[in-house]
């Protein structure tokens, strides 16, 4: 159900997205929001761009004859068009326990807590919608320390709905309330294992989009990235983090309960804030450094912020990839 919105409503803002009930609707809103103001519509001109003429030979399809050239020169020439290639997009969405964290309370959103997983899955849905509209083939993998769920790579008309259903159906029931009730999950992240499983099944060079908080060891990430690089895949890393994880704004003494069964730690958070931020900073720097060292793209996403930046980043990346020679004659 969509709440009545004003003209200025920003459908890329998580506070707004959280009020939208279904993920497919969220994705459409996002895509439309991103495309507003662009000169070229994503729905026009794809795969019919003129390239050159060549002489007719036997067996050619006479529907491609250029009758205007024949009228001027009495020679039969065929029109050849530049046909855009289909991009294979694989979306990897992290469904580990830590992705269930949210510092955005229901009171702030008006409906439900906005978890990191919500941010990641919405981003994935939007990207898949955008790609499918451009005839790209899209696949989805939900993972934690292993692949939890995967869809085939396809550009079929109804494939987007399948992806959305998979994103919604993923039993990431884990959230803060359950963690506080003493039911931590064992679902951690193992990127090296994930990339090993995925690359074994990918037979075409693909653009892989990873949406995760990357709460894994940098060594594991490095192994996974090396594998992808070796297989010739391209990768965009969207590291999704909650605003509280980035700023650690807690003041009153609290008991912190880990969402991935790390146990409980009682402390005065203000006293440990700087040390935490330092530790996190070191990790984030390592992740970004490793990603860029392998020539992949990296973007950190604050789950409280708009999705405009990652979507724009994706479109730019796609254009760049197609411009570098992925098109076929």
């Amino acid at each position, binding site marked *: 159900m969509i709440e009545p919105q004003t003209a200025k409503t920003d459908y890329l803002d998580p506070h707004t997205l959280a009020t939208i009930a279904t993920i497919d609707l969220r994705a459409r809103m996002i895509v439309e929001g991103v495309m507003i103001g662009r000169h070229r519509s994503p729905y026009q001109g794809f795969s019919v761009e003129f390239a050159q003429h060549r002489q007719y030979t036997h067996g050619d399809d006479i529907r491609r004859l250029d009758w205007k050239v024949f009228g001027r020169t009495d020679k039969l020439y065929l029109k050849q068009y530049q046909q855009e290639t289909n991009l294979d997009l694989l979306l990897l969405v992290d469904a580990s326990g830590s992705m269930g964290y949210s510092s955005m309370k229901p009171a702030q959103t008006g409906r439900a807590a906005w978890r990191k997983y919500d941010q990641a899955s919405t981003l994935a849905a939007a990207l898949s919608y955008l790609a499918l509209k451009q005839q790209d083939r899209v696949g989805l993998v939900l993972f934690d320390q292993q692949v939890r769920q995967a869809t085939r790579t396809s550009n079929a008309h109804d494939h987007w709905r399948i992806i959305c259903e998979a994103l919604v159906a993923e039993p990431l029931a884990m959230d803060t309330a359950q963690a506080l009730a003493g039911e931590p999950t064992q679902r951690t992240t193992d990127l090296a294992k994930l990339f090993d499983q995925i690359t074994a099944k990918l037979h075409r060079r693909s653009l892989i989009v990873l949406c995760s908080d990357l*709460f894994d060891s940098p060594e594991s990430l490095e192994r996974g990235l090396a594998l992808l690089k070796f297989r010739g895949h391209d990768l965009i890393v969207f590291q999704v983090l909650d605003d509280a994880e980035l700023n650690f704004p807690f003041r009153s003494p*609290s008991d*912190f*309960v880990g969402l*991935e069964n790390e146990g409980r*730690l009682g402390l*005065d958070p203000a006293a*440990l804030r700087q040390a935490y931020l330092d*530790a996190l900073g070191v990790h984030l720097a390592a992740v970004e450094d490793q990603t860029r060292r392998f020539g992949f793209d990296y973007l950190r996403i604050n789950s409280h912020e708009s999705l405009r930046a990652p979507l724009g980043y994706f479109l730019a990346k796609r254009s760049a990839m197609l411009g570098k020679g992925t098109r076929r004659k």
Partner: protein
Amino acid sequence: MIYFADITTLGLTTGIAMAGAAAMSAPIVIHLLTRYRRRREAWGAMRFLLEAFKKHRTRLKLEQILLLVVRCLIVGLLGLALSAPMLEMRGCSALGMIDPIAGRSRVVHLILDDSLSTQTFDPDGAMRFEQLKKTAMAVIESLDETDRVAVWLSARPCEALLAPASVDHAAAVAALRDLKPRFSPNDLPTALVLSAKSLTQSSADASEQALVMVLSDFAAGSLALDQAPPAQADHDNRVSMWIARPMSGRANVQIQSFAPRRRLILNHAGASGASPSAALELTLRRYDNESADEQTQVTLAVMDQQGQPILVRQREHVWSAGQTTATMQMDLPLAANHTTTSAIGAASSGGRTVVIRASIESDPLNHTDALFADNHAWTIVELQSKLRVALIDGSVLFDRGESTGLYSGKWISMALTPLAMEDDPAGDWPVEIIQLSAENLSQNQLTGIDAALTVRPDRLGDQGWSTLREFSNRGGLAWFFTPTQDHGASAIWGAKLTETFDLTWRIGLHRLEADQTAESDSSEEAVRWSLMTDPDRAATPELLRMLAADWTSLLEPVRIDKRIALDVQQTHGVDQTVWLRLNDTAQSPLLATASVGDGRVMLLATAIDTSWTNLPTKPLFVPLMHETLRSVLGQSPRLGRLSELRVGETLSLDADWLGAEQLLHQSDQSIDSAAPDAAPIMLKRTEVGLTSAKSADQPGVYTAAPQPTHKRLAVNLIPRAGDTRAIDQTRLESWLNALGQWDWLDHQDPAAALRMEPDRLALARPLLLAVLLLVIVETMLARWFSHANTREVTTLAQLTGWVRRLHRTS
């Protein structure tokens, strides 16, 4: 050394200190509580939190402990500051370290003992009071110009010589210079209370340093150490107390008590022309001297209306070793001519009062008597020409009994006025008998009557009973005898007697006969009751001491045949005794007496009749009747009150004194007294008589004004005030400790206390400053440890903003 001025008493300051100590544990309690009441927070990036925690665990613990210590210190020091401790830093000012009270003014309260004991002369011939005055003046003269001084006098009643405190030091010195000691005992507790109240009321300037100096000789009689000092005497912490050292004991002889055995004396010049005499009893007491063979010369003097001795008698007492108290009994003749010529003055009743003064010779060398003021005592006796006795009998002659004519009333009449019946019918005899009818007794008939002897109580009507009760209240003697006639009315008159006079006696309904109670004994003598003569078990009644020598021999011949049952139950607060008891198993009362109002009621449980008892025919009867009348009337409380008044106490006078407006002290030039001339004492009218507006401040004789009136009062010293022995210093120190912190004052250099005061530093302010510093340190530490980079940190600016918003909202 740190002193807590009020820590030894459970006062308000101690309560605050205890609350402060309890509050000191608040940070720890809060710390422990927060451990169990933390908010739980689910957290995704736990690995980084754990990593940071492991790295900084030790530092965090140290920071927490440091903060906890600082917070505990803040609360603890705040509590300490509220208890206002004093730091003794003697010598620090001399060393130039600090001058803690530089610029502070002082208020000094001098409590000067001007009680009787300070009139004691020391071996050097100086009166102690002069030495105390000198000390007080030395203290005042050493004060700075801005210092204030108050002077309190601690003799009862305590009064202010200079209060509230003033900077007029010259006025204080001038007032002290002319000051004379008083005669009343010391009342230091009250003086301390007055001083404490005054200090509290004038404590607007908390920075003012307060000193209380108690200047007393601390003789044994100057302070009741068995009574704790009043709580109101406690001073707060800013007050320091200085106490003069107790002076050594001095030998002293005093008249402890002086009173006539009978205050009413019959001044009847009969045929013999013998003059009356006063039987006097005097008790001597000596302190700090138990040596043998020392002599004390006692002089008794009858005083005229101008206070001059007109008749003097001397007696000497030789002390034995270890003897401290001696009682002397003396007869002082009151010659009619002397009393007449002294113009003592006659009362409307025909009586007159005589003042008798007792003195002991002062020891000019002060070896045995260092205090002269307690060498004099005064008492008053009343002379009366006749005793008027009403004999209340039945009105019908044949109803009086015996055919021989010796009925009850006759026996009594014969005992009281034997000469009048035979030789002097005109009645020139000290006892005059007025015959009255029991049935028609009225108030007017008893006017001017001293005693009413009722032999027919069964004939009294309601009006008669109430008349006798009123008569007794006014000081008369109402004596009831058992009637010989028994018409079944004994139950009624017995009940009326106990009811009218509010007695707890039980009076039997029927007569008891001796032979009915001892039927088994064949001996005639054995069945008659005798009187108890055992001197141990039947002590001579106090009022009949004149007969003491012959008491046993007088009682032995008396036998009782019939009597009524009488049971006297002792009741608390009621003065009732049995003067004669039967020698039976139950020791049954025969003659019982009780005080009623200012008078007395008596009952003889047998009839004055030979068929009841042989008493009227025995030698005991006549002296018993006379002595009882004279003793009871002579010891009337009304008369006693005139000689039992004490210096320093408010005087209460009965209705006989109505008309007097003031009391004048009758100066006695023959006594060398340091006392100033006494001012008149104004009298106020009350419901029951008169009371003085202030207490009598000098011993001696007081006369009523305006004249003419013969009324006089004798005011004497309180003997305890003249106890010049050395006080028990250990007990004195304990007593003083209950007041708070104090120190001895040096008599030789009393101003040293003022010079030493700057060395005592009040710690409250430095402690508060330390608390403030710690609060700042705590804030900085808390910021540094925890909130340095937190945006939500509560800064001073934020706090100011909140206050402003709150102000706007309100």
